[in-house]
């Protein structure tokens, strides 16, 4: 089993997976990674199940010392990762050795990076998930963000690191250099609480991300969205990407650590395939909302699923094998003779 030591945790580094489901009826937030596309990609690159626990790094990268040989991959925001001072590629699986140190030169684009380790991060599974729920002090590594001096165990990789090393993809789900982000929205469940003018304001103006943005939600500023009457409702459920509009008229996009229920009107929901764009936006970035349909949203979810299958297929062909010797056999099966070649690999 491998080990890593946190020398410096950066701004906010937590253990996350795809979230904790089944407990929202008890008031337990889902949590999980903010940018699911980047997180899944990182896990796939190191040969993990795409929902395995990894590190989510926000704004400023950590410094990590490796205590054993481990295969890692970094995706998402480009914070310019270096190992022992040498630049390494994003979106590529790399073997690190005992004593190696990973650090980051600084944020170039996006907001959140993901560091996956072959074998995953070995933390207890709490209520079905490895995700850290910060407000609930639950899950992940002792229910909290990582601190200097923490030592984390890394699980057993699915196969030899050498077979997994060097896998790389150029797949970009979206351009993180964009300072203006277009988010497609399915209206509801309380779009009828807004005036026609309010709906038009929402869909035709530019909003910007305020510093009040974190794993719980993104508060935006811009043209005030007009309600017909009241901005408050009797509390109901909140799904990922829900856009609440309180009486001030500014939209708030609810994210991974959102509370399970809330009492503000929701004008719409950012569609699932655009949620990663929110996760990678940071204060000052501009946001434009565009109306979408449920059919379009569901078609895009399927399209992304197919893209992941395509990436997995392409990565499976990138196996770098060092053949030590080859043996040839004749094998007889049901009267047919087959030529069989067996490669012995390193």
């Amino acid at each position, binding site marked *: 089993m491998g080990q890593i030591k946190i020398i410096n945790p950066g701004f906010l580094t937590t253990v996350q997976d795809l979230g904790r*489901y*089944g*407990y*929202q*009826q*008890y*008031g*337990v937030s889902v949590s999980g990674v903010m940018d699911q596309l980047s997180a899944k990609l990182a896990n796939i690159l190191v040969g993990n199940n795409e929902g395995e626990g990894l590190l989510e790094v926000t704004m400023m990268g950590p410094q990590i010392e490796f205590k054993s040989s481990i295969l890692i991959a970094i995706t998402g925001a480009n914070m310019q990762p270096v190992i022992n001072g040498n630049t390494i590629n994003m979106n590529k699986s790399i073997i690190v050795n005992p004593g190696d140190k990973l650090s980051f030169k600084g944020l170039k684009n996006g907001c959140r990076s993901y560091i996956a380790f072959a074998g995953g991060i070995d933390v207890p599974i*709490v*209520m079905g998930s490895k995700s850290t729920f910060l*407000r*609930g*002090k*639950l*899950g992940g590594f002792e229910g909290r963000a990582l601190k200097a001096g923490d030592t984390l165990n890394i699980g057993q990789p699915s196969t030899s690191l050498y077979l997994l090393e060097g896998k790389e993809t150029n797949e970009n789900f979206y351009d993180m250099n964009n300072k203006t982000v277009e988010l497609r929205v*399915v*209206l*509801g*469940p309380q779009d009828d609480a807004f005036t026609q003018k309010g709906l038009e304001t929402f869909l035709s103006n530019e909003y910007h991300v305020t510093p009040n943005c974190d794993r719980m939600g993104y508060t935006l500023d811009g043209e005030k969205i007009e309600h017909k009457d009241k901005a408050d409702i*009797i*509390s*109901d*459920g*909140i*799904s*990922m*990407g*829900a856009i609440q509009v309180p009486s001030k008229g500014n939209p708030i996009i609810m994210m991974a650590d959102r*509370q*399970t*229920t*809330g009492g503000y009107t*929701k004008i*719409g*929901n*950012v*569609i*699932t395939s655009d949620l990663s764009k929110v996760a990678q936006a940071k204060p000052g970035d501009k946001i434009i909302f565009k109306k979408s349909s*449920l059919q379009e*949203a*569901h078609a895009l*979810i*399927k399209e992304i*699923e197919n893209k992941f299958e395509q990436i997995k297929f392409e990565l499976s062909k990138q196996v770098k094998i060092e053949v030590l010797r080859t043996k040839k056999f004749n094998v007889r099966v049901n009267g047919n003779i087959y030529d069989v070649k067996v490669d012995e690999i390193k």
Partner: protein
Amino acid sequence: MYEKTKYLLAGDKALDIEFGNSISEEINSKIRSMTVAIETQNVLGVIEAVPTYRSLMIHYDPLKTDFNKLKDTLKTLEENLDNIDLPEPEVIEIPTLYGGDYGPDIENVAKHNNMSVDEVIKIHTSEEYLIYMLGFTPGFPYLGGMDTKIATPRLQSPRTKIPGGSVGIAGEQTGIYPIDSPGGWQLIGRTPLDLFDPKREIPILLKAGNYIAFKSINETEYIEIKNAMNNGTYEYKKYPRKNWGDDNGTN
């Protein structure tokens, strides 16, 4: 309650079944039946159902089900709710140490309502409170049924940290903070029970649709229960609700 239940879009992975636009036991009872129906039917593609005051949010996987198919299945379930056998609601007893350091605002509540502290305790412990929903933080119950005789406005400035287990009053509501959190409620007491323990098989003690009853205890009992909690030997007191059936879902 609406004449016709609304099925509302809540993004591409959730829908809201909205039964009405008020807080009432009738609506809540319908939500409870619907939750039980969905849990027992194991509807394809449903990830989880979240009951609230007046609606049920269904989180679903669009790769496993189609929105219209799901809506049709749920509507059929809704039409057959009368055939659902609801388990008898349970009352969970919440031993509470009132006043002193454990409930520093109980004198505010007494003064505001022109009564003695003992009267506040008597009124607060004489009701069974319906758990309409859980939300805000893990295990935080939204309760109905407090006697308005002890209603008291929130604190003018909220406390930054309220210890877990604190029992409070805010306006015409009463409730319990399961974990340490900020808040502006008038604190009248504290329970030694752990309403939320992630290490427990069922981490959350309370469930929407059940009831709670506060029972006044003294400091010795508080310490005894706390120790039993810590040793894992405490047994929660639960009992079926008295007179259940007489007023089930009709008032």
